[in-house]
């Protein structure tokens, strides 16, 4: 048993290192804009992976993960700026700020989780929806700290000089974000494979049965929320670092819905679904931009309307169709296709 577990761990570690190396090579090839997109995918991946653990594994719905990302982002922003004001700089500072962001978000997740553990279905959705609406508003109430709608700039160190004077900043950002995402995936994959994952699945599939077999259901659900919040906090922190600014507009209810859509469309059952979701979150707006600038070149206002709303429309429609026609999402579809191919191949 122990041998098996350490084998899984080793496999995950090897996969992570392999993926890290491949992504490193990729980042060397990509132009700055694509590297920035890669970094954004990595940042979103932290959040979607966390949400997949929560919704897919423990069956709890959160419409408030955008707000949790905001918590991480604002914490990182405040840490970075305060440290910079006190002349504490250097490349060790950013990991510290990100860690602070993760910890504060975990604390927020713990509080929401406490409430969530007592709520089910639409009630939980309603509460997290209220969180998603309330958190951006809080930045206005405490405007001395958060500077209201304008938001805060985030001080971020330039790439270290040892990388050379012309090292593109975007590649550096991609490295930071990818490191965070890979670490998140590795930790979550191990967690999901282990006892924690089994407990959550048991709770999701049959709460009463789980309770009867000695599982502390409420505890497991709170833990799921905390773990999930950690991912969201890191993702939000990384987004703040990438954009070098934070504002409530970036963490609206729509972001929360987008995250949920992303994990549902990607596939709720597995962490790989979270990768698809994160890719979609970046690719879809990009695609919408290309489509709308091609379509309505005549009227810039109409083009802007179309561009801003097309991803929402596509996301919403896809979501409804996925939920009704293929609840397994992209990952489930792939699974079915590969299974089908595997069955077909030997017979030939």
């Amino acid at each position, binding site marked *: 048993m122990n041998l098996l577990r350490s084998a899984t761990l080793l496999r995950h570690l090897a996969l992570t290192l392999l993926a890290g190396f491949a992504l490193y090579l990729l980042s060397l090839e990509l132009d700055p804009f694509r590297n920035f997109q890669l970094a954004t995918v990595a940042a979103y991946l932290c959040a979607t992976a966390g949400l997949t653990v929560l*919704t897919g594994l423990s*069956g709890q*719905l959160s*419409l408030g993960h955008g707000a949790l990302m905001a918590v991480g982002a604002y914490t990182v922003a405040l840490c970075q700026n305060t440290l910079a004001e006190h002349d504490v700089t250097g490349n060790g500072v950013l990991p510290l700020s990100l860690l602070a962001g993760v910890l504060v978000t975990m604390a927020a997740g713990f509080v929401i989780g406490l*409430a969530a553990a*007592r*709520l*089910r*279905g*639409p*009630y939980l*959705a*309603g*509460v997290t*929806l*209220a*969180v998603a*609406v*309330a958190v951006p*508003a*809080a930045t*206005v*109430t405490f405007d001395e700290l958060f500077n209201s709608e304008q938001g805060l700039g985030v001080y971020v160190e330039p790439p270290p000089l040892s990388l050379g004077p012309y090292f593109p900043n975007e590649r550096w950002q991609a490295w930071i974000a990818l490191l965070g995402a890979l670490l998140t995936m590795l930790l979550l994959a191990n967690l999901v494979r282990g006892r924690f994952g089994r407990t959550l699945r048991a709770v999701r599939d049959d709460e009463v049965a789980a309770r009867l077999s000695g599982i502390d259901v409420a505890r497991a659900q709170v833990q799921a929320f905390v773990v999930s919040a950690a991912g969201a906090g890191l993702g939000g922190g990384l987004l703040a670092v990438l954009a070098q600014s934070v504002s409530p507009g970036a963490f609206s*209810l*729509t972001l929360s*819905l987008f995250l*949920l*859509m992303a994990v*549902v469309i990607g596939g709720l059952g597995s962490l790989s679904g979270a990768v698809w979701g994160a890719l979609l979150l970046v690719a879809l707006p990009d695609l919408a931009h290309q489509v709308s600038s091609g379509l309505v070149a005549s009227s810039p*206002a109409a083009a802007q*309307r*179309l561009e*801003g*709303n*097309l*991803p*929402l*429309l596509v*996301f*919403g*429609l*896809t*979501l*409804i169709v996925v*939920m*009704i026609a293929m*609840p397994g999402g992209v990952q489930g579809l792939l699974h079915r296709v590969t299974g089908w191919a595997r069955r077909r191949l030997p017979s030939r």
Partner: protein
Amino acid sequence: MDRFVFLTFDGLSKGAVLAAFALALVLIWRAARIVNFAQGAMAVAAAYAAYTVTTATGSYWLGLLAALVGGLLLGALVERAVMRFVDHRSPLAEVIVALGLVLVVQAALGMVYGNEFRAAAAPFSRTALEVGGVPLLSRYDLFVFGAVLLVLLGLALLFTRTGVGLRMRAAAFAPEVSRLLGVNVGGMLTLGWALASAVGALAAMLVLPTELGLHPHAMDLVFVSAFTAAVVGGLDSPPGAVVGGLSVGLILSYVSGYLGSDVTPMAVLALLLVVLLVRPGGLFAATVARQA
């Protein structure tokens, strides 16, 4: 003291609208055991229909009519074309599909009308009439009370005094038995969604002139407040929704009046949490646990 009186009347007027919106949520919950998270977006869509009609004809009343008819049709369409096909065994599926609808409706509105605020017309003056030197209620507030009261009475009569209402209740409580007795259960469900959506549309028409105006997201906070109101009332009880709506309206009016309007969203969250954790069955329900 004057301010308190003013805030009280203002809160009752807001509360009346929340009550109507919460009632729409309760209607669908009773008919289908679904919390319609898309209700805010659907109501805004109906309000945009009113905006178009009012702009074209210059008549507020034709616009209101358009919103109500549009609400009816949209509700029926959503049930027939989308909700009917959702797997009802998973509680997540219904919520997620409703959220997908939110995105679709808001995106469609953004594409057609743009994402900027547009003024929502009010048929009566919103300046408060003074009684003994104290500003109390505006003509518009009176209109709001009248409209909500009319809807409440209409629904009460429909459900307790007519055959259609009896069919709708029976279909919700015991779908299979109702079919055996000749009730078109699917039709009743569609009708329930249509009615709820029209009531939601009316609530949007009443509340939008008192807020920032028309915007695809204009009902987001109203939805959360109305959800809170419905939960306060127990989600299952129409009278509960009304009392819940009025209480939430009052609380939010005081919070916004004494602490500032930007605190309102946090107050809603706090209120919702308190109600769900302290009295999970709502103030009017007999149920103990909240297992949906």
